[in-house]
Each structure stands twice: as structure tokens, then as C-alpha cells.
């Protein structure tokens, strides 16, 4: 069972000082590691590779993945000015893994910064794989060529389906409890090499970012001023006035 997981490094704080693995990708990686372990228990081989597209420095996220238990890692080094949409990300990843025969590709449901949720399903299309998004449960019989998944729908419903491998899934948060990197794996990770690939030709994007804007307001948004006590008094007064308190 060869599994590829797409992971992204994102800014955790607006100033970009703290960077972390996209929270949604931790669930994707954890799910891949659990599947690999199930195969190992059944005496079958399994390996989890991770790939990230990002500027120099983004390989930190690969090291974290090694610490969690990933076997191999690849960093596709992009130009820091590059601001492509999920279509470009998926195109570059598809190009980089061409010829690698993965049984399963796993991505997160969305990136915290771009929030498109499209890299996975576009990548599936480019790689010619069946695809299921928003997966909240997986089961596969080691050795069998099928994965059964449950997709989260609105209203607490789940769409259950079986896909023939190879396939791609995008994993929804809450599917598992992502592990923390273990000290022994982190130490071993220090000796592992990350395959580095330069981005050569960037595929044409399907959209251009024209500008960023402040979101529209749907309510008045009265901002309370003063000290924290003043703010508490103001809320108290308003709720008394409205008869809530």
C-alpha cells in the first residue's frame, strides 16, 4: 500500500512569524499512517510519502511529518512570489509524482489560508483517479483493491461509497486524533533526506487574484471602547435594556 499525502505549511499568525502544518493536513497524514499500520499488522507492506509545494523553508513541514511517521518526503520548491490557485498547486504536484504508482492519495479538506478545498479533487482528475471529498471514515481490507469511505454531508448525514484503488480522498477534520511527533522519530528524521525538486514550468492558472478586500458587513458592528470593565458594563447595560438579563 503506497500512500501519498499532500501537506502544506501555513502561517499560524497573521505576521507570518509562526508557521505550522495546515491543521486539516494533520488529519490527512494521521489517516494515512493509520491505514499503513493496519496493513503492517496484516503482514502487508505499506509506506507513506508526503509532498509539499512551498517556498524555501517549507520543508519544516516535511520534517514534522517524518516525526509523525512518514517514510519519504518531497519538497517542491516554489517561487515565494508565486500565488497560484489550487489548480496550479494540483498541476505541479501531479507533474512531480508522475510515474509513482500510489494506491491512495490523501489531502486535507482545505488549506487554512487559501480555503479553496480544490487541490484534492483537481489532482484526482489530473491523475485519473476516482475521488471522494470530506471523508470522515475509511475502511479497507488489507490486500483488497477497494476503499470504503463515508463522506460528510450537511444535516448530519453520511454518503457511503466504495472506490476501486487507486483513488484519492480528501479528509475532513475530526476523522481521527492526529498524533504528536515522537521524540525517537524526530531524532531519526534529522538523518532523513528530503527530496528537493525545483519548480520549472508553472502551469497556466484558471484564475487571477485581482485584489483583496475587507469583507462586507452583515450587521452594524458597534465596537465597544474603553477598558475591559467599560466593555463589560456596556454589554450589561444593553442586555438589561433588552430584558435578557
Amino acid at each position: 500500500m503506497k500512500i501519498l499525502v499532500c501537506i502544506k505549511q501555513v502561517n499560524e499568525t497573521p505576521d507570518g512569524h509562526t508557521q505550522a502544518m495546515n491543521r486539516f493536513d494533520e488529519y490527512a497524514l494521521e489517516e494515512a499512517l493509520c491505514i499503513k499500520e493496519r496493513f503492517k499488522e496484516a503482514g502487508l507492506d505499506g509506506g507513506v510519502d508526503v509532498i509539499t509545494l512551498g517556498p524555501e523553508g517549507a520543508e519544516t513541514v516535511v520534517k514534522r511529518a517524518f516525526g509523525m511517521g512518514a517514510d519519504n518526503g518531497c519538497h517542491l520548491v516554489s517561487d515565494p512570489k508565486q500565488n497560484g490557485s489550487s489548480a496550479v498547486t494540483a498541476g505541479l504536484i501531479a507533474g512531480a509524482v508522475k510515474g509513482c504508482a500510489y494506491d491512495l492519495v490523501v489531502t486535507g479538506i482545505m488549506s487554512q489560508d487559501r480555503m479553496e478545498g480544490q487541490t484534492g479533487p483537481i489532482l484526482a482528475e489530473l491523475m485519473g483517479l476516482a475521488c471522494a471529498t470530506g471523508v470522515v471514515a475509511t475502511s479497507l481490507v488489507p490486500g483488497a483493491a477497494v476503499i470504503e469511505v463515508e463522506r460528510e454531508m450537511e444535516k448530519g448525514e453520511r454518503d457511503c461509497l466504495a472506490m476501486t484503488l487507486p483513488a484519492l480522498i480528501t479528509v475532513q477534520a475530526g476523522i481521527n486524533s492526529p498524533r504528536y511527533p515522537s521524540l525517537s522519530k524526530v531524532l531519526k528524521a534529522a538523518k532523513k533526506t528530503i527530496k528537493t525538486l525545483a519548480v520549472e514550468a508553472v502551469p497556466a492558472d484558471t484564475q487571477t487574484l485581482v485584489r483583496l478586500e475587507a469583507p462586507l458587513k452583515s450587521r452594524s458592528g458597534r465596537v465597544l471602547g474603553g477598558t475591559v470593565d467599560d466593555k463589560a458594563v456596556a454589554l450589561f447595560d444593553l442586555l438589561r435594556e433588552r430584558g435578557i438579563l
Partner: protein
Amino acid sequence: MRPIAVVVEHDAGGIIPVTHELLACARILADQTQSSIVAVIPGKGDPAMAKQIADLGIETVDLAIIGMDGYNSEAYKGALFQLFTTLAPLYIIVGHTATGRDFAPGLGVRLGGGSIAGVNHIVSDQTGPLFSRPVLNGVKNALVRPDASPCIIMVQPGAFRVQGTSFACPARVTAMDIRFTGGTIQPLGIKTVTTQGEDLDQAAVIVAAGRGLGERENLDILERFAALFPNSVVGASRPLVDDGWIEYRFQVGITGARVSPKLYIACGISGSSQHLAGILGSELIVSVNSDPNAAIFNHSDLCIVADLFEFISAFERILQRHP
């Protein structure tokens, strides 16, 4: 003239309300681009459903995908690819829903076009329509211009208002069959896992906790704060439920409950579109967040920029003085 196509969302119970929001979005685009609208119902063929849409004055294609049993992304992509190759729409409007998110991006690639996710607003520009979508946890909207055609617009549920239905002459329904013969996805049915509790529905005041809470132990502080209000309950954003801090029935948002209390107090919640979708029916929304740029403040009546713990202590002190 290239039309604007709308992919109708439906389930066993019929047309899903979000479909009317998709039509509202299509009307805005149709006005801006002088195009006509055509609705497509991918399914088993359902003349009654098709009539419901056509009666709104919208030309409708009742697309029976022979060989598809229940939703199947392969069947959707295959059949819609065939239909749209001949229909040549300028834009294709799809819900940014569990279903839309599943088939639309791949369909866009197959059609040689593109797809824009989570669209919440359309701006008209000399170069044509620009589409707004949230980025950075909703702190900003990105305005994007499609560079590939057709462009699939994945519409954020709740973002487009449904206009009152004005009288319209019923439009034509075209019935169409497309055979589906793929075989890599096999549907195993829909399962209902959780029924929402009544706690959130019945509460007059919801104090909602977000990741800003930091530690699970701090939930006690929120419980105490909520207890200050009559008929109140603690709700939560999704990550707290994902982490097992709170049961699913207390989750607010697009994949949780849509609530409409008298008062909603969001504590340490950033205001992602998925959370907002659940709270906009509240009478009064108060938000406490330490980040003055948090998106939630755009959708609040009262904005309290503060550390939530300091604010709660201050509020408790005030209440002690005015019992």
C-alpha cells in the same frame, strides 16, 4: 449566446433550498452578461421536480443519468461533461456544498475550464464579473477573475439572497438521457449518524466557545459565564467537537446546527464562513475576540475586542455589583 447553467441540488426529499440561492446568483450574472439561464437536474429523471423549476420561468434540462443509483461523482462528472460540451455555458453555478465540492473541481478540469470555490459576492468590473471568496479565515475576501472558460462558480450557501418569486411564464423542460458506465465508485447508501439535540434549538442564549479557549479545562469558565444568563447553553465551533471537548449536538455551523437564539455570544471564534452559516439567524450577536481584525466582527451587533477570560471576569464582577 452562451447560457449560464445552474446545477440543481436535490435529495430524496426534492429540491434543496440552496438551489434558489444558486438561481439568485445566476440572475445577477445573467443581468451583467446579458445571458439566459438554464437549470440542469442531474438525477433519475424527475418531471415533477423539473416542472417546479420551469414554473419559475427558467428553462430546465431534466437529465436522467441511466445507470446511476444515488449521487456518484463519476456519473455526475461524466454526464455533465457531455451535456456542457454541447450546451457550452459561460458559467456553471454549483453549490459550495458537500455535493458541489465533490464533483465541480474535477468537472472544471475535464471541461478545460476552471472553478472558483466559496463565492460569496459578485462585483461588476469593466473586464467582466469578478468573484469574491473568503481567504485567511475570512479576514479578507479575494476578488478573482476567471481566466479559463467555462468557469464553475461554487456558491457559498447563505451568501445570495433569494428574491421573492415574481410571476413568470413557465419555461420549457427538456428531458435528456445520458448513460453512465463507469465502475470505480459504488454507492453504499446514505446513513444518518446524528440527530441534532434540542438544547441549541430551545436556548434563548447561546454562549459559543471557539479555539480561542486554548485548553479544554477552560470550558468550565464558559459554563460559568453561560450560567449567568437565563435559559442558556454552551455551543461550540467545530474544532472543539473534532477534538472531543464537546459533543457534536452542540456544534454550530454548516455541518452542525443552524441556530436562532435571542442572543449569541461568540467567544474566541474567528468567524469562518462555515461557522457563520449557522449563526446569522440570531437576534443579537455579540463577539469577544482578542484580534480586532477577526472576521466575526463583520457579522456582529456588538464587538468586544478583548481577551475572553479577562472580559468574562470583568462581566462577572459587574454582575455581582448589580444582582
